[in-house]
């Protein structure tokens, strides 16, 4: 029984680490490059300690245009190792397995540069999460009212079914990441509706304070170099 529990913890830990590495890499890599970099980590570095990460980053960035981002990628991995599970993207293992078994064919690089889009998602989610968490810490009941207000208002804005699903998922668990099919303008609108709701239930001054604090937190992310959180305000 104990052995089973230890094994489960180890698996979870491995998954969390993989998600951390994936979250750090995908602003810089895409398509095959990204998945192959993930397999490299999975096969050769996942059981090693953190000090080997420098070597890993050097290896994946060698002979690529990301060589100049070597330091940022390394810092991002180290930073992501410290994040809680809720703050990380989903485990990419299914995609990795599908790729290795030939079930999916990935392009060498994707049409939309992930370097531009992914940091946007991470920074926005960090901002949103931090903002919401502060509201919930201040008053859980009123934070729920804010989400109720949000769900009443958001549907005037987001009409797309897939996006609506993501929104609905997030409303049910606002302490988690919001999925990523949104544009920058939609992210801004989502944040603004939440802001208006927070003003209604917490008053504008507390809301401004929480939002400023969330912006500061998001600015400390390595991804904020590519996506300034103030663009969502």
């Amino acid at each position: 029984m104990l052995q089973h529990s230890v094994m489960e913890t180890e698996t979870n830990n491995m998954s969390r680490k993989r998600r951390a590495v994936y979250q750090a890499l995908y602003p810089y890599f895409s398509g095959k490059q990204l998945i192959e970099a993930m397999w490299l980590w999975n096969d050769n570095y996942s059981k090693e300690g953190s000090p080997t990460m420098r070597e890993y980053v050097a290896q994946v960035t060698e002979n690529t245009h990301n060589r100049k981002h070597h330091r940022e990628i390394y810092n991002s991995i180290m930073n992501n190792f410290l994040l809680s599970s809720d703050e990380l993207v989903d485990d990419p293992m299914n995609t990795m397995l599908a790729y290795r078994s030939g079930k999916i064919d990935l392009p060498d690089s994707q049409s939309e540069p992930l370097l531009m889009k992914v940091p946007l998602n991470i920074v926005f989610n960090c901002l949103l999460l931090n903002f919401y968490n502060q509201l919930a810490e201040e008053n859980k009941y009123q934070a729920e009212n804010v989400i109720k207000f949000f769900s009443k208002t958001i549907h005037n804005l987001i009409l797309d079914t897939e996006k609506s699903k993501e929104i609905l998922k997030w409303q049910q668990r606002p302490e988690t990441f919001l999925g990523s099919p949104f544009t920058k303008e939609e992210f801004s609108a989502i944040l603004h509706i939440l802001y208006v709701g927070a003003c209604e239930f917490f008053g504008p001054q507390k809301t401004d304070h929480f939002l400023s604090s969330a912006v500061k937190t998001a600015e400390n992310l390595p991804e904020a170099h590519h996506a300034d959180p103030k663009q969502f305000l």
Partner: protein
Amino acid sequence: MSFSLKYTIPLITILFIPTQVFASTSSTLTLSLDTVWVATAAALVFFMQAGFALLESGMSRSKNSINVIMKNYTDACIGSLVFWLIGYGLMFGNNPSGFIGVDHFMLSAAEPFDYTTMLFQTMFAATAVTIASGAMAERTHFRSYLIGAVVITALIYPIFGSWVWGGLYGGQGWLAEIGFIDFAGSTVVHSIGAWIALAGIIVVGPRLGRFSPDGKVHSIAGHNLTLVALGGFILWVGWFGFNGGSTVAGSADIGLINLNTQLAAAAGVVGTLLSLIIMGKPVYLTMIINGSLAGLVAITAGCATMTPDFAILTGLIAGPVLILSTKLLETLNIDDVVGAVPVHGFCGAWGTLAAGYFKSDDLFNVTQLFVQLVGVSSAFIWAFSLSFIMYKLIDLIIGLRAESIDEQRGLDYTEHNETAYPEFQQENLFNDVQER
């Protein structure tokens, strides 16, 4: 010609010349003195614009402080031009009907003292129009506010003014004719400005989050109470010109008028303080400053016709009037950022009633009180209804209320692309302020 006649005529002539010269010199001197005093008083009244700007800006959040000052600055300018163009004629021109002046528009060829009067009255018009800016702060479009300012100085303020102070060049306003007393404008200037502000804040609605759906009132503290206090002091100083200058002459009455002004302001603070203590409420600086303004507004109507003891009583009662009317607005979910409606509206109305009831040579005259009530009511009906229609039309045509995203960002950024305190506001603001 006899000897006596030969010498008597020149002698009489010699005796009379100095008297005539003296009479002429004396009237020139009086005119000069009057001009100097009224022009100085006009400058003091204009200085009140600085007081309003500081007070209103300090009571607003830092992200809206430039917008508030811009409104103060520009409405004074637009108000001056529009009042010269049309307002002065409507208010002070020949008034045969008792309801509106019909000449002296675009004053340019007049007696020297007419210019002085116009200068002084222009400052009054600017004061009336700027009252709304503070009440409607933090959520009103700049351009819409300015259109409102044009209509106020062109029509709403001067037409009511003509009912009380009109007929400078012939005729008389109907309220003046029935004996309405408003020496320096508790009603004509302050209440009119406040009822316009009330209409404005009803049409524009409360600021985002001021009142919760569950009925909770969220107080929204101003960003700089030091500015508020300085603004309060400047307004107080300016009031000596506002009330003292309303003699429109360098007369001996100025002493009593300005003493009453000082005592009522002080009593206003004490009245507010006592009311807050009795009601078990915290004593906020903003309320204390508004208390002094409440006393000042209240005494404006009767500062020349009351004895100092009644001036103190008038100011003292203005305190609770301020507190209760502030509470009333909150209960009705009406969001007045600076408390302009309680200070200028309710206390102006109270002061106007007091001016009639506490008139030193006709104390406690109920008929006079009724006349005052007619004046106060007609001011409310005229200013509120007209400005309500005006703001509704502005709202329908170009929009009065800023978008909620503008409120989130602050009107300094969205309306003027500036920030008041760039060194301290970086964490709240947007990275494209300069590039936009």
